[in-house]
């Protein structure tokens, strides 16, 4: 799904909205003025032609070879003059002492009557004009002949003037619009970005929640009221998942627990058998069932909150105890097991039961692979490693990554649930430890577990 940025959307809406409102107000001003409601603007229909006529006059300014400016009416100005029978125009320099060549002598004469007044911006009418709607305008303009004063009179409204009026006016309005809109956009951006920052914190918090920390919730401090329902809903969903996970764990723990009694009965029953040829096999089978039940129970218990992974455990005594536990089974299967540690104690961070479970799994696997008469070697390294070395068929290179996936089995006929190594991997993940498999020199598999030294 393509996601959108709330900040840019906010800024975009704001800019478009402002522009629309601005244009509406601007357009609305024209009928308000023309109908006389906005009397301060004192605008009549003919005023809409003022801008276009002045522009034509400005475009008609020329200079002679010695630099004296004069008016040389363009084609468009002549057309305007034909359209407006009363049209007169004059151009002065800024001192207003001299009218340029080509100015209307009549208009210049009338302006002279103002005597001492020097206008720099005005609208005016003449006494006794043939039409009371005829108006004049005096404005300073920058042209090709420099900054001049252009006076026009007698312009009349034609529909083609309207486009020019709007274009000219739009530019004036734009000058105000741009800084206001830019400031509003910047403020909106900052407000949105700052307003959303608690959400980013909440997201960062949520992304750290996994099955091992499902009891955590997103803190509600600083969350904006608008997004509170979302955060609360996420927290409620987490609470339901947490409860569900707890139910699952309890179920797994209870199921494993219930299995222990029948396994205990089975084991005692087999122990009580007189020596029959299949007794050894039965004992091995029941031992395997027990290992699986133990694994399920340990996995369920470790997933419970408070299953501590950072106790300090001595690898030498822990692993040696597991090796000792396996000794009877090894001897009955006419195999051997050896324990090796170069130092008397190797302390690591972890959970003793989980580490015993890891070792039991690896030893169980190694025993199955080990040929009769040969010896499984279990070695604790001073850096917090445990190697379990067998001399069986080994594990093909292309399977070495897959063996830690649940329910992977060497082949359909090989015994075991395929859960053992997956549980080893999971328990080691909880320990932030690693497990890898390499070939034993001379053939077989060597599993290496690496833990964090305490």
């Amino acid at each position, binding site marked *: 799904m393509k996601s959108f940025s709330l900040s840019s959307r906010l800024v975009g809406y704001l800019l478009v909205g402002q522009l629309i409102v601005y244009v509406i107000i601007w357009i609305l001003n024209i009928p308000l003025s023309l109908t006389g409601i906005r009397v301060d603007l004192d605008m009549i229909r003919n005023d809409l032609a003022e801008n276009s006529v002045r522009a034509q006059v400005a475009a008609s300014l020329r200079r002679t070879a010695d630099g004296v400016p004069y008016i040389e009416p363009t084609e468009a100005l002549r057309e305007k003059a034909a359209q407006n029978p009363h049209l007169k125009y004059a151009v002065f320099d800024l001192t207003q002492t001299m009218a340029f060549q080509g100015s209307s002598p009549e208009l210049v004469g009338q302006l002279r009557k103002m005597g001492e007044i020097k206008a720099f911006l005005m609208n005016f009418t003449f006494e006794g004009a043939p039409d009371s709607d005829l108006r004049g305008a005096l404005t300073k303009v920058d042209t090709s002949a420099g900054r001049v004063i252009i006076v026009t009179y007698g312009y009349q409204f034609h529909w083609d003037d309207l486009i020019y009026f709007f274009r000219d006016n739009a530019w004036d309005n734009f000058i105000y619009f741009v800084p206001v809109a830019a400031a509003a956009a910047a403020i909106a951006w900052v407000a949105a970005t700052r307003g959303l920052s608690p959400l980013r914190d909440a997201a960062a918090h949520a992304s750290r929640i996994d099955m091992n920390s499902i009891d955590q919730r997103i803190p509600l401090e600083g969350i904006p009221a608008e997004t509170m329902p979302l955060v609360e809903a996420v927290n409620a969903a987490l609470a339901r998942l947490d409860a569900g996970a707890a139910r699952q764990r309890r179920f797994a723990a209870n199921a494993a627990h219930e299995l222990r009694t029948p*396994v205990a009965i089975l*084991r005692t029953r087999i122990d009580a058998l007189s020596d029959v040829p299949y007794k050894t096999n039965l004992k091995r089978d*029941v031992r395997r069932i027990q290992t699986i039940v133990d694994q399920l129970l340990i996995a369920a218990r470790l997933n419970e909150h408070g299953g501590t992974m950072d106790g300090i455990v001595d690898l030498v005594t822990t692993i040696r105890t597991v090796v*000792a536990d396996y000794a009877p089974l090894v001897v009955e299967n*006419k195999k051997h*097991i050896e324990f090796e540690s170069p130092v008397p104690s190797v302390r690591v961070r972890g959970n003793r039961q989980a580490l015993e479970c890891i070792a039991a799994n690896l030893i169980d696997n190694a025993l199955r692979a080990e040929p009769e008469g040969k010896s499984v070697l279990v070695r604790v390294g001073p850096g917090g490693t445990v190697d379990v070395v067998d001399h069986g068929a080994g594990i093909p290179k292309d399977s070495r990554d897959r063996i830690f996936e649940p329910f992977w089995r060497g082949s359909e006929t090989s015994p075991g649930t395929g859960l053992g190594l997956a549980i080893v991997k999971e328990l080691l993940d909880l320990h932030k430890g690693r497990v890898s498999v390499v070939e034993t020199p001379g053939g077989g598999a060597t599993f290496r577990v690496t833990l964090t030294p305490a």
Partner: protein
Amino acid sequence: MQILLVEDEPEMARLIMECLSQSGFDADHAATIGKARELIGAHSYSLALIDRRLPDGDGVSLIENIRRTHSGVRMLMLTALDSVSDKIMGLDAGADDYLAKPFDRDELLARIRANLRRSGAGAQPPVTVGALSFHVESREIFVSGRPIMFHRRELALIESLVRRQGRATLRETLVEEVYGGECELQSNALDALVSRLRRHLNDNDAGVAIHPIRGVGYMLTKSMP
């Protein structure tokens, strides 16, 4: 030498009772706390094996009860609950030992013997492995009913191994039990002693084997065919 088994699971109870009688112990069975209280009042037991989950309550309450009324009875909890807090709760209530299900028959017997020895209850049945039988109180050894003489250290060693028959005994434990606090012990002294003992047992057709478990210790089992 009477033992009381408090266990509600009929199959489990039957198997443990069988195992106890085969090993020469005289045992009674109670399936409920009520029945157990009744039996305890009527007999003098040396040891009680008590399950935690019982139909009429938690075995822990029975343990507390026995501890108050019959302080001489040693108690061993048998249960499928094996988390550390469960163990602590049982031991705090007054149990002497703890064994989690599923347990090994040999281990159960070894724990029973160890607890009886500590209680000084006397008259324990002999422990047998293969053709060899070890009389716990007199520390005499017989092979097929014939008494066999051992040197002091060989006897200490075979006692250590027989008590934990079918399970590996750690090297340190053997050294401690055979040589006590003796220092300046040569590193291969124990192995030499094991060789001598092994030869001695073979010469007498004891029908047992001492397996070396390298890096761990030794294990005594009956010889395999």
